[in-house]
């Protein structure tokens, strides 16, 4: 779908991008607020935060499959158990970095947050191109031109400014982050529109952007910067992929000021570092003075429909990876910085928290 749907070339850079979006809504501007599914929460209250997990993941379309039943009570029980275990292990906040079109279930997340006491941050955004619905790729116009960056910026921006959608019904809490992704084999023109739109909305409304890295992290960062979003408002995910490390991207992105997402902790294999190698990568980044750039997650899927999840518990980082970091000589101060302070700074809506 990626190649067949890609048409046209990337858009030129617009000047003063934020002026093209609706003015941010007036609200109680406590500079340290984080948008959670239950409303704004002081960034100091987040505690240990996993920045890029999935609570309920649904491969788009799987909800219509004849042989897939999504039992809401069972989903709740499974997720509540996993979140409670995370809480018991010392966790505070989970960011559901799944975006708006892959199973996001706001009412379920609200109930889960109330039930377990874990803060849940839900996110806007979608991508890569192959995950989009035809509405964005082959609209009912002649010719069917895919959506440009500006329209994605408006779609995502409204979820931050007015509330995230329960499709065709209502808007609920505002989004805490905008997540997108770039095609693994290379950025398509629509991927580029998604990254630009996400960055444009984030620059206007003060939330961070999370990119699941495609094939060229520096080029993706360049698009974000062109949209006037400061580098420290970007999490570049996938920085614990072997190819990313081989090409020196974690250090390069940190040097450029971006947040480096070590975000597949617990997944090992030919594409990813082992957890021990992740420890070494983190040690070297800290040694280079970039402790403030590192954010951690497992990309764990709480429940998954339509394709297999990864069965990683939300406790993996606290119970398995932190001891590994400690054994590797990473100080508690740095561990707290990565798991608490960096995430709080990133998710605080103005980004100003020190």
């Amino acid at each position, binding site marked *: 779908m990626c190649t067949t749907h890609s048409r046209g070339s990337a858009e030129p850079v617009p000047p003063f991008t934020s002026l093209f979006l609706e003015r941010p809504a007036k609200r109680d501007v406590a500079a340290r607020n984080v948008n959670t599914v239950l409303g704004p929460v002081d960034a100091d209250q987040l505690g240990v935060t996993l920045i890029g997990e999935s609570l309920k993941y649904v*491969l788009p379309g799987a909800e*219509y499959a004849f042989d897939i039943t999504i039992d809401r009570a069972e989903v709740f029980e499974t997720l509540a158990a996993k979140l409670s275990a995370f809480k018991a292990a010392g966790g505070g906040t989970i960011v559901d970095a799944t975006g708006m079109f892959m199973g996001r279930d706001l009412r379920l997340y609200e109930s889960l947050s109330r039930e377990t006491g874990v803060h849940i941050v839900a996110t806007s955004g979608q991508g890569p191109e192959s995950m989009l*619905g035809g*509405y964005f790729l082959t609209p009912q116009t002649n010719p069917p031109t895919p959506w440009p960056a500006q329209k994605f910026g408006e*779609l995502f921006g409204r979820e931050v400014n007015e509330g995230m959608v329960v499709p*065709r019904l209502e808007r609920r809490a505002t989004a805490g982050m905008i997540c997108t992704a770039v095609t693994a084999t290379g950025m398509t023109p629509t991927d580029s529109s998604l990254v630009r739109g996400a960055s444009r909305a984030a620059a206007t409304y003060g939330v961070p952007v999370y990119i699941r890295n495609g094939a060229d992290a520096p080029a993706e960062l360049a698009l974000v910067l062109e949209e006037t979003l400061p580098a420290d408002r970007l999490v570049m995910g996938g920085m614990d992929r072997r190819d990313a490390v081989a090409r020196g991207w974690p250090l390069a992105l940190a040097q450029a000021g971006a947040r480096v997402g070590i975000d597949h902790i617990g997944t090992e294999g030919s594409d990813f570092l082992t957890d021990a190698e992740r420890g070494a990568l983190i040690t070297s980044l800290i040694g280079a003075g970039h402790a403030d750039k590192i954010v951690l997650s497992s990309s764990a899927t709480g429940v998954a429909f339509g394709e297999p999840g990864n069965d990683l518990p939300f406790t993996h980082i606290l119970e398995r990876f932190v001891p590994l970091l400690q054994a590797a000589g990473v100080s508690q101060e740095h561990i707290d910085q990565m798991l608490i302070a960096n995430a709080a700074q990133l998710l605080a809506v103005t980004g100003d928290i020190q």
Partner: protein
Amino acid sequence: MTRVNTVLGTVPAAELGFVAIHEHIGYGMPGCELDSKWWKTPEERYNETVPKLRTFHENAQPWGAATFVDATGICNGRDLDYYKSLSAKTEVHIVASTGFVGGDTALPFFERASVEYLTDQFIHEIDVGIGSSGAKAGIIKVGVSRGFKMKDLDKRIYRAAARASKATGAPIFTHLAVDSGPALEIFAEEGLPCHRVLFGHADDGISQGRIDEQSLLDAGGRIGFDTFGYDLELPDPPFWGRKRQERLDHFLRYLNNGLIDQVLASADANCSPLGWPGVKGHTVNYLFDELLPDLRQAGIDDVMIDRLFARNPAEFLSLQPIADH
């Protein structure tokens, strides 16, 4: 015994009455549900939809009943529980479809699926039901993606539809009749006779010059004149619109040349569109308000009109499983 699947259960074909063979309660491209610019309250949706269906029911009284075939495939806003409530309160028979409007409306889960899985999906929706609604699909939708050329995913959907049609007996209708070569090949390979297939939108403006009508006819296929009312004379016509008289003349050529049994007609109107503005004022009742008077004025008698809108679509919609030999 004849059987037709409607959203409220299986009925004898004789009960269908006047049939609009290609319509939409509400159609939207996948993903449009995320864009609140199109949202309407349930009150607005019912207010836009119920009066059109009641009028349809009243218009169809000379035929005893009205049947609305909904051509909204999987992922396009198809909503069986809503259709059931509409049908129960207006008495209009609603026939729902399984399948996809085209490859570019099939979401990633189905894009990755095999022909065998897609076949199972369609058969399940026809024989067992759609989701948890209990309602069974009565027809299978397939179609050509944007660009007038069948894509690989389109072809997999056509092949799965052919297999499901043979197994369940449900007919197939297509979105677009362009690039029909691969479609005819697939139906021949799968052993599905083409009188079980309605090649739709053969009358729209943008398809003219791109349809090999003769090969469709030679294969025994049915030709869909199913966008009646999308006229270029409208104040803001859609890009697939066509001059009203030109479409009518096209249709009359079939009726006047002994091909009445190979055509079916409809309006492809949305009662309440989901992800596009729709065309103001265009409803299924165009068939009664405009088309039937036009046909009568052109000398088409009531016997022919019955064949077009009652007898032939009833025969088409009747479940007719085809055994492999």
